[in-house]
C-alpha cells in the first residue's frame, strides 16, 4: 500500500469501523436490549434498555476505546523512540510503577477520592509518573537520552517494583490480595463516568502533541546520527514523545489497570498494512486500538455471561497467538 491516497482511505475506513463499533457493540450483552426502548429513551422516556445502553454500556465502551487507542498509540511511540519493535507502553516500568501505587493503597486501606478519581487511580497514576521521572533522569546524558540506559533502567525498575508488589501481596490478607490480583488483570468497569470526561482533555492534547512529532519520529526511528544530520533537535523530540506517551499510558493504566498486548500487536499489524510512516501509522493505531479493545471487552463481557472476565485476559489470549502467527509468517 504505497499510495498516500490509499493509506488515507484506509484510515477513513478505520474511523468508520470505530464509529460502528461504538454503536453496535453496546447492543451485545448478557441482558438483551430492545431497540424501540433505546429510541424511546432518547425521547426522554426512562426505559430499562435505554438506561443499560446509555448509562452502563456506552460509558464502558468509551472507556475501552480510549484505553485501547491510547495504548496502541503509546506503543507506536515507544517502539520508534527506543528503536525496538518489541517495546510496549509498559517496557519502561510505567505499569509496574502504577501497579505498585495501586497495591500500596489497597494494603494501606486508604480511601478518599478527588475530583471523581478513586484513591487507587490517583495512587497508580502517581506511581507511573514517579517511575518515568526516575527512568528519564537515569537515562539522561549530555545533549541526548540514552535509549539503552532507558530500556535497562525501565526493565530493572519493573523487576524491583515487582518484588515490592509481591512483598505487599505476602503481607496482605485474602480480601486485599483478591483486590490486588483483580486490579492487575485490568478491567473496564466504569464506576464513575465523570472521570471519562475529565480525562479526555489530557488524552486529546497528548494525541495531538504526539501526532505533531510524527515526521521527526520517522527519522529518529532510523538512527540518532541520521536524525541529527537531517536537522532534528533529537533531545527535544525524545523529551516530548517520552513525556506524552508516558502520560497517556500512566492515565489509562490508572483507570483501567495494566491491559496487555494492545500496544504491541496493533502497531505491528498496521505496519504490515500501511507501512512504517508515523503520519499514517499513528492515527491508524489510535483508531484500530480503540475498536480492538472495545471488541475484546465485548467478548470478555459475554463469553461466560453473566460472569465478567477481566479484559486483560482476553487481549492476551487473542494477542499472544496472533503475535506468534505474525512472527512465523514473516520468518
Amino acid at each position: 500500500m504505497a499510495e498516500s491516497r490509499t493509506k488515507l482511505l484506509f484510515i477513513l475506513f478505520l474511523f468508520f469501523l470505530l464509529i460502528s463499533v461504538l454503536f453496535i457493540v453496546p447492543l451485545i450483552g448478557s441482558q438483551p436490549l430492545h431497540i424501540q426502548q433505546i429510541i424511546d429513551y432518547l425521547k426522554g422516556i426512562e426505559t430499562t434498555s435505554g438506561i443499560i445502553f446509555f448509562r452502563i454500556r456506552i460509558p464502558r465502551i468509551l472507556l475501552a476505546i480510549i484505553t485501547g487507542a491510547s495504548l496502541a498509540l503509546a506503543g507506536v511511540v515507544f517502539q520508534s523512540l527506543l528503536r525496538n519493535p518489541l517495546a510496549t507502553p509498559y517496557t519502561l516500568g510505567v505499569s509496574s510503577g502504577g501497579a505498585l501505587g495501586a497495591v500500596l493503597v489497597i494494603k494501606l486501606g486508604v480511601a478518599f477520592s478527588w475530583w471523581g478519581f478513586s484513591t487507587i487511580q490517583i495512587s497508580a497514576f502517581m506511581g507511573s509518573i514517579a517511575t518515568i521521572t526516575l527512568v528519564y533522569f537515569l537515562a539522561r546524558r549530555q545533549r541526548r537520552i540514552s535509549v539503552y540506559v532507558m530500556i535497562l533502567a525501565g526493565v530493572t525498575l519493573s523487576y524491583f517494583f515487582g518484588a515490592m508488589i509481591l512483598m505487599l501481596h505476602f503481607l496482605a490478607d485474602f480480601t486485599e490480595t483478591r483486590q490486588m490480583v483483580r486490579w492487575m488483570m485490568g478491567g473496564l468497569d466504569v464506576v464513575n463516568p465523570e472521570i471519562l470526561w475529565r480525562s479526555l482533555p489530557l488524552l486529546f492534547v497528548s494525541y495531538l502533541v504526539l501526532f505533531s512529532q510524527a515526521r521527526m519520529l520517522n527519522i529518529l526511528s532510523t538512527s540518532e546520527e541520521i536524525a541529527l544530520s537531517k536537522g532534528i533537535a533529537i533531545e527535544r523530540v525524545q523529551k516530548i514523545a517520552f513525556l506524552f506517551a508516558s502520560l497517556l499510558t500512566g492515565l489509562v493504566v490508572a483507570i483501567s489497570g495494566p491491559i496487555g498486548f494492545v500496544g504491541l500487536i496493533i502497531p505491528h499489524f498496521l505496519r504490515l498494512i500501511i507501512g512504517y510512516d508515523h503520519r499514517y501509522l499513528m492515527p491508524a493505531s489510535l483508531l484500530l486500538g480503540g475498536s480492538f479493545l472495545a471488541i475484546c471487552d465485548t467478548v470478555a463481557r459475554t463469553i461466560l455471561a453473566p460472569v465478567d472476565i477481566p479484559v486483560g485476559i482476553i487481549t492476551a489470549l487473542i494477542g499472544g497467538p496472533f503475535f506468534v502467527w505474525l512472527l512465523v509468517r514473516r520468518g
Partner: protein
Amino acid sequence: MIRFEKVFFRYQENPVLKDLTFTIADGEFVGIIGPNGAGKSTMLKLINRLLIPEKGKIALQNKPLKSYSHKELARWIGYVPQDFSTTFNYTALEIVLMGRYPYQKALAFDSAEDIQMALQAMEITDCDHLRSREIHTLSGGEKQLVILASALAQQPRILLLDEPTSALDIKHQIHFYQILHKLRNEQKITILTVTHEVNLAAQFCERIIILKNGMIVADGPTANVIQPEILQHIYDIPLQVISHPLNNLPVILPDFRSS
C-alpha cells in the same frame, strides 16, 4: 568553507584530535585517510555537529558552527554514514524524503516539490528504480546509493562521507565515486570523504589529508601526498607508488609478500 582552529576532542580520557587546524575551500574534493583510530570519523562528526569539540573553534562560511540552528546546518551539510541500518523497514523513497525535513514545516505532509526533489536526487545517484523497494530488501551497494540520495535531498553545499564504500565490491565502489565526481563537477558540491581505499582516493580526490594519532601528518594536492615515503611511514608497511598507465595518477602497490 570549513575552518578548524586548534580543535581538541576526546572520548573520556583518550584525546582523539589534538589541536587540529585546517581549512577546506568551497568546491574541493578532499580525501581523508590514515590508520584505524586516527580520528578521521571524529573529525567528520565534529563538522556535522554530531559531536561537540572540547576546545577550539569550528567555522562554516566564516560563522561559528554553534550559531547555526539544526535545520540551517542540515541545509548546508549532508552526511553519509559508514553503514546505515534501521529496525523499521521504510521504503527507499521514504528514506530519501527524510532528507527534505530541513525544508518542511513541522506538521506538513510532503509537497509535490519535496517529492520531485527526492526523485531527482535518486536519479542523480542511479537509484530511482528502487523507489518503492523496502530498505531491508536492498543490497549494501543499493542502500548506500539511497542514503546518498537522502543526503542530496537536503540540497547541501557540503557532503561528508564516512567510509561510504567500505562494504561495497570494486564495481560499486567505482560507481559510487564516479557519482561523487559528477556532483563535484556539475553542482560544485564540496566533498569530504573518509576512506581506507587509498587508490580510489588517489584517483578521484584532488586533495588528501592524512591523519595519524589525532594530528594532520600530511595535507596537500594528491600527487604531493601520495608518496611512498609518506605512506610507508603512515601505514608502517613497505610499498611502491606507480603511475596508472591510463591516466598517470598515482597507484599504491604494497609489497604484499615481503616480511
